[in-house]
């Protein structure tokens, strides 16, 4: 363990957990309302971010306008996906639905590559890269206080991400639509029978998932640039979702932070092999969760009957 770098990696790991939590939120949104785990979330994120890039750089619109248009477009994309591909699958077995989202992911990935090409792009910077925040910690190493240097985009991504999660949690808690969506998640047929429009609820949750994906994508792209592999980053959010519990919105924050922290902690190691394991840490955590507590920290334990 490299003690000098430990505080630095702990804090930046936790901050990196913010965007992970946001991506996990997109997955939970859809799962909560429709019991579909969306393996195409990464491609949704990719397309939304590429669209933002194209509007901001290709058409030279102001960045805020590009983001607003892209958010609207990804909401429409989410609606379209729900209507065209997942509505026909209602009532089909789990395998078909999982494969449908996987196929959708492949299709959208191919589409993104065909429309935008596979080159690495520079995303317009929203936060200045020149002046990182510095925090002086009380820990002393070699008779000097350890300093933590935090890039602005990392901090602000975290703030935006957590704000997003809190907003959506409030939406589920306090608005009529949000309550209807929570009700629908209990039992689809029961919800339908008391007059909740189940199709509309699925549509809304997909549209929201599209928006959340684009926000997450833009945040990631500002810190690490934009290429087609950004869709793979969502795969680190899958373990966060399972860790937090599939139905739980507070769970995604905790899950995201733990995943980010685990990646940060192994990065502080002095052994190269352990340092390299940062990329698979989410999956190691996932295996541990599955073996010890499959329903996650805040998820519902299901009782099965024949």
């Amino acid at each position: 363990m490299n003690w000098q770098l430990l505080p630095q990696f702990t804090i930046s790991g936790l901050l990196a957990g913010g965007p992970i939590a946001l991506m996990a939120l997109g997955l939970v949104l859809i799962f909560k309302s429709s019991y579909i785990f969306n393996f195409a979330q990464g491609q949704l994120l990719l397309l939304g971010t590429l669209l933002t890039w194209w509007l901001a750089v290709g058409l030279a619109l102001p960045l805020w306008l590009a983001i607003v248009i892209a958010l609207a477009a990804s909401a429409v994309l989410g609606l379209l996906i729900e209507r065209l591909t997942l509505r026909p699958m209602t009532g089909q077995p789990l395998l078909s639905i999982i494969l449908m989202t996987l196929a959708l992911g492949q299709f959208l990935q191919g589409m993104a590559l065909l429309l935008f090409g596979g080159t690495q792009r520079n995303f317009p910077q929203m936060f200045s890269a020149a002046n990182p925040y510095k925090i002086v910690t009380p820990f002393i190493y070699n008779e000097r206080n350890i300093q933590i240097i935090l890039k602005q985009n990392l901090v602000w991504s975290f703030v935006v991400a957590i704000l997003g999660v809190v907003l959506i949690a409030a939406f589920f808690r306090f608005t009529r639509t949000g309550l209807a969506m929570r009700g629908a998640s209990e039992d689809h047929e029961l919800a339908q029978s008391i007059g909740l429009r189940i199709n509309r609820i699925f549509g809304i949750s997909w549209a929201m998932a599209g928006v959340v994906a684009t926000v997450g994508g833009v945040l990631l792209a500002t810190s690490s640039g934009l290429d087609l592999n950004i869709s793979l980053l969502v795969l680190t959010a899958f373990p966060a979702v399972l860790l937090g519990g599939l139905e739980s919105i507070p769970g995604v924050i905790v899950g995201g932070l733990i995943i980010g922290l685990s990646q940060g902690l192994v990065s502080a190691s002095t052994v190269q092999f352990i340092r390299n394991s940062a990329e698979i840490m989410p999956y190691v955590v996932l295996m541990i969760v599955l073996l010890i507590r499959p329903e996650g920290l805040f998820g519902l334990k299901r009782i099965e009957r024949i």
Partner: protein
Amino acid sequence: MTLLRPAGEFDESYASDMATIRRPWQWVALGLFLAAIYLLPSYASQNTIALVNRIAISVIAVQGLNLLTGYTGQISLGQAAFMTVGGYTSALLMIHMEWSLFVTLPLSALAAGVVGLIFGLPSLRVKGFYLTMSTLAAQFIIPWFTRNAFPDLLNGAQGLNVPVPVLFGVAINSPQRFLYLTITILIITTVVASNAARSRLGRAFVSIRDNDLAAELLGVNLYKYKLQAFFLASVYAGIAGALSAHYLRHINSESFGLADSIILLGMLIVGGLGTNLGPFLGAALVEFLIELATLAGPFLGKIAPSTAAGAVQALRPLFFGAALMLFLIFEPKGLAHRWQLIKAAWRLRPFSH
């Protein structure tokens, strides 16, 4: 799926009741088909032979997945990762021990099987979607391991150059010669898979798929059979991976990725879950589609030059994703089911039912 048999066809002995191939003409048809495949090198082009090789290797991997996903109902997104294990094992044994393929192929199958068992362990506690996630973890952890562990042995991200296998003094160094090898192994795996599926093992698998709690109450040992399904599926993946590594003569951590696992599952769906014919039809159709994308890519590049660079890479997932989505919506039981319907319609002609 012997639902419909012509009137007047009865089994008069246990042997004929158990036979897979019932009629003399079926033996003739099978013989002619195998002859046509084995004689491919004498009349088919290089491209066709390469395509048949790819299809045969995919069929082996999908047969394994069929036992796990089609019969036992455990969804696996890690089949390609177990192919990686098989490929590396066979390559390493041949490089360092200079053993023949006769030894390395079973050993690589065994190695993949054991690794498959490890990642199947969560099936003791979780099922359905959660289990899918654990196999997804395999798909990330195994390639990462080959990239980062034992750099002297596994050569990191560059991977290994795989030696040419020598059988009976003949170097299997061309697609033509490889064809004999893959088809022969495919025949063995097909016989094993179809017999496993209709024996006690296969019936236990199906009962777990249809209702695991009911199966357990009836005395089916869930853990034993689930782990056996994982083991068998990974053994098949190991064989397919080893063959593929020797065929392409190179293997690295990206040879078999998540996209390949998805494609294998897609082949299974397109072909038909839980049928012996499914893996063949699905693998053939999907490999044809991928071939089509490879051919159509440069063509698209000519029409719209801006897309030329990535056209082939873009069209493959595009075609595959679109085909799989269409199948899931319009033909969820796959091509094998359609084939059954066609056969039934033929037998009942001119009546509709």
